[in-house]
């Protein structure tokens, strides 16, 4: 959860990339790491298996604009997608200020998208977080696949279970849409914080 420190004049938010196994969560962070100036970001920490599957989490801290004199910092985490890492995923999701749900546009992965979406809701319930109280951006990744599911079909598959979320499209390996997703979530998170806590200024 957000931490506002009057002494260091910093406000820190925690954003978590969760979603379908192998959908490209780590690829999102890798792109952000590669494309931000090293003075404005940390090293990319990845805790992965030998085959590059996320084992615990990836971590990247990024710094952004001043919000009324407070330097904004975002701690970006990814969680492991694989089902047998449910316990570690739950730990990393705790205290998140906002989520990106990375879904896979590969038509063969459609059932996995929904399974992961339902698993997320179980995690949130176990952490006593109401999904409506948490900003979530739904990212349709791998839009570059030649047989990617059409946008409308992706919308349809999430419609029954999802509230009207902010949706972005991306190709994380080539970077398309990665910053748009991050900026969309950052805006939602900061504006929600602003709407809840009068100490955060209205204008940047």
């Amino acid at each position, binding site marked *: 959860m957000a931490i506002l420190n009057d002494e260091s004049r910093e406000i820190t938010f925690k954003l978590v990339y969760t979603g379908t196994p192998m959908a490209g969560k780590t690829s999102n962070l890798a792109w952000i790491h590669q494309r*931000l100036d090293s003075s404005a970001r940390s090293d990319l920490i990845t805790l992965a298996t030998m085959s590059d599957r996320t084992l615990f989490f990836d971590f990247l801290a990024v710094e952004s604009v001043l919000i009324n004199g407070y330097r904004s910092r975002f*701690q970006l*985490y990814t969680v492991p997608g694989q089902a047998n890492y449910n316990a570690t995923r739950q730990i990393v999701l705790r205290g998140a200020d906002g989520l990106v749900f990375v879904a896979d546009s590969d038509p063969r992965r459609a059932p996995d998208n929904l399974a992961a979406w339902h698993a997320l809701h179980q995690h949130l319930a176990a952490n006593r977080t109401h999904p409506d109280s948490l900003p979530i951006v739904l990212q349709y990744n791998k839009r570059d696949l030649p047989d990617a599911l059409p946008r409308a079909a992706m919308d349809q598959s999430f419609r029954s279970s999802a509230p009207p979320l902010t949706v972005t499209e991306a190709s994380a390996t080539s970077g398309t849409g990665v910053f748009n997703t991050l900026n969309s979530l950052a805006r939602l998170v*900061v504006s*929600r914080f602003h709407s809840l*806590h009068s100490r955060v200024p209205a204008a940047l």
Partner: protein
Amino acid sequence: MDPFFSAPSSPLFMDRETAAALRQILVAHCHDADATCAALIEESGTVCAQAGDDSLNDHGETAALAAGAYHAVRETARRLGESAFEGLSHEGRHKHFHLGPVDSRFLLLTVFSNDTRLALVRACSTRSAARLRDCLAAQPPPPPPRATASPLARHRLNAEEVLGTTDFFRER
């Protein structure tokens, strides 16, 4: 349910006085435990206060890893049927560290060298954790949430209204 896992956290507003008081406790902790550095770390991996050398002056990577390790070990213990958790420590060749609980949200990281005994660090950590808890509890209450925010769907408030189309991050 484990009380550690019961309450969702809320934003933390740390005023200057509290920040300074927390740092003073950590300075005393480093002195008493003969530690090279110490930090109060929030569950998300954010360093809220620190004292000692600059081992933790990175961009937050070390603190994030420490928080992750701490929570993973605590959850392992819980799953094995052990609800008490006194923290964990690593003894290396030259540098060692101890991670101990402060409360459900914060932990205390202490880094020490060969000249110091783990037993001393543990004992000091327990004492300093109580001081840190008291200090955090003595903070003035956070500002009340805005009355106008509707309890549900409040994040759907049009972000553009508040932030325009601000890009927090730009690709180089």
